[in-house]
């Protein structure tokens, strides 16, 4: 097939999966948060269960004026939402939905993933700096400090997985989790990396991932009670919508990465390998949904950390733990 045509189809497919996915997560957040606070949440929009609430919100944002403050750095201010959105969508290039359902199986998939996921924070920093607002700038700088602190444990936790899998390709990592570990009465048992001893790695990755997404308990860059809305303060209309969608699309992509690295990705025990191209996407979506639910659960339960607690958690606990995890994984890899 023509390269450009294939590219267009892939982009369209990723967008067709991602944006509705983000909307579903937004709806889930509205509904779950409401019930966790003994409310009902959206109820009337769309006729039943308020299912159309995210669409209605989007429509509302589209009608709003696209405001650029006088003190803002115009070009950078306008560009920032696109950078955030791009960084989020770009991670989906290497997320495998099935043995053949992957946009591009890069050999350095994991490396690429960690590289582009930092792009989001660059966009946030751009937004914070260019807004010409003190709150925005503090928010942006906090986001940068958070990136520096939490990118390390994220990478180190992923390194342990790469060591254990012996590859950095995400297809390879999923394949490594489908290998038979032992057999019980003719039934081959394969274990995802979470059950192959990456418990600490999983915990570190999830915590650092939450921080990368700047969700509660790590939402200091936004921190409504301290910084109004952080780097989002000056944004309105469609540009705000892009940040908003980007945040939830980021949640979906982070959940997809976590499930691919630690929970076996599209693979589930008991499914014929030939069927995985059909069942795989559904399995991945189910895993993503569970992780997204846990993220939402965290958000509506826990308070926000203080800025110094955030730094101390990363540098004093997560990074040493991640380093120890790598050493132990390496030893286990050599010995076993």
């Amino acid at each position, binding site marked *: 097939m023509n390269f450009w045509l294939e590219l267009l189809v892939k982009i369209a497919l990723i967008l067709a999966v991602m944006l509705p996915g983000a909307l579903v997560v937004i709806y889930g957040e509205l509904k779950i948060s409401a019930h*966790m606070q003994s409310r009902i949440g959206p*109820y009337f929009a769309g006729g039943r269960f308020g299912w159309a609430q995210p669409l209605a919100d989007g429509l509302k944002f589209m009608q709003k004026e696209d405001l650029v403050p006088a003190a803002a750095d115009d070009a950078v201010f306008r560009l920032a939402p696109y950078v955030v959105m791009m960084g989020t969508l770009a991670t989906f290039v290497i997320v495998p939905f099935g043995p053949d359902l992957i946009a591009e199986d890069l050999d350095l998939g994991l490396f690429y993933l960690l590289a582009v996921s930092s792009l989001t924070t660059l966009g946030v920093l751009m937004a914070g700096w260019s807004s010409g607002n003190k709150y925005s700038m503090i928010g942006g700088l906090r986001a940068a400090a958070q990136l520096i602190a939490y990118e390390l444990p994220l990478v180190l936790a992923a390194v342990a997985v790469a060591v254990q899998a012996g590859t950095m390709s995400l297809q390879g990592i999923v394949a490594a989790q489908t290998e038979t570990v032992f057999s019980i009465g003719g039934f081959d048992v394969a274990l995802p990396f979470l059950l192959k001893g990456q418990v600490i790695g999983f915990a570190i990755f999830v915590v650092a991932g939450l921080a990368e997404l700047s969700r509660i308990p790590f939402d200091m860059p936004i921190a409504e009670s301290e910084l109004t809305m952080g780097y989002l303060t000056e944004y309105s209309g469609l540009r705000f919508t892009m940040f908003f969608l980007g945040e939830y699309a980021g949640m979906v992509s982070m959940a997809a990465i976590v499930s691919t690295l630690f929970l076996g990705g599209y693979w589930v025990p008991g499914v014929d390998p030939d069927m995985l191209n059909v069942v795989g996407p559904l399995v991945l979506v189910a895993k993503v949904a569970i992780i997204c639910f846990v993220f939402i659960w965290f958000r509506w*339960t826990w308070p926000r950390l203080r800025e110094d607690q955030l730094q101390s958690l990363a540098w004093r606990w997560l990074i040493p733990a991640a380093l120890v995890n790598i050493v132990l994984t390496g030893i286990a890899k050599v010995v076993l």
Partner: protein
Amino acid sequence: MALIDKNISKLPLWGLLKGMKVTFKAMVTKPVTVNYPKEKETPVPRARGVIALDVEACTVCMLCARECPDWCIYIEGHKQEIPPDKEGGRVRTRSTLDRFDIDYALCMYCGICVEVCPFDALFWSPDYEYSEFSISDMLHDKERLTEWLATVPPPPPLESS
């Protein structure tokens, strides 16, 4: 077991888990919210929803209007002459109610008018659906107040000694 129960709360992150248990419980519990226009709330029988008027019992004594703290009751009446039953009898007069309006935009539901009425012409009704689009339409006349009389619950039974 007692030792575990006592020390389990000292485990790291235990408080976070406890919080998650609380939110999860709240999530699976049905909220008590009543989606008002779709579902109707049933008020308690003697709820102070609106004040109903029994025109026949009213003697236009004006006590309610005078006691009303924010002067939301408007009463007008006139003396009517009733001819004597028998030849040579005295012509009697009776007060007739012409206007009895309550401005529910002003009313603060204190119930003093109901308490003060010496002839039991005013009652509390649990009906609450009488809001209007304009504040000037909140002035309800005696015909409307009489309609609400049908929704007044019967008085509670007397206590036996």
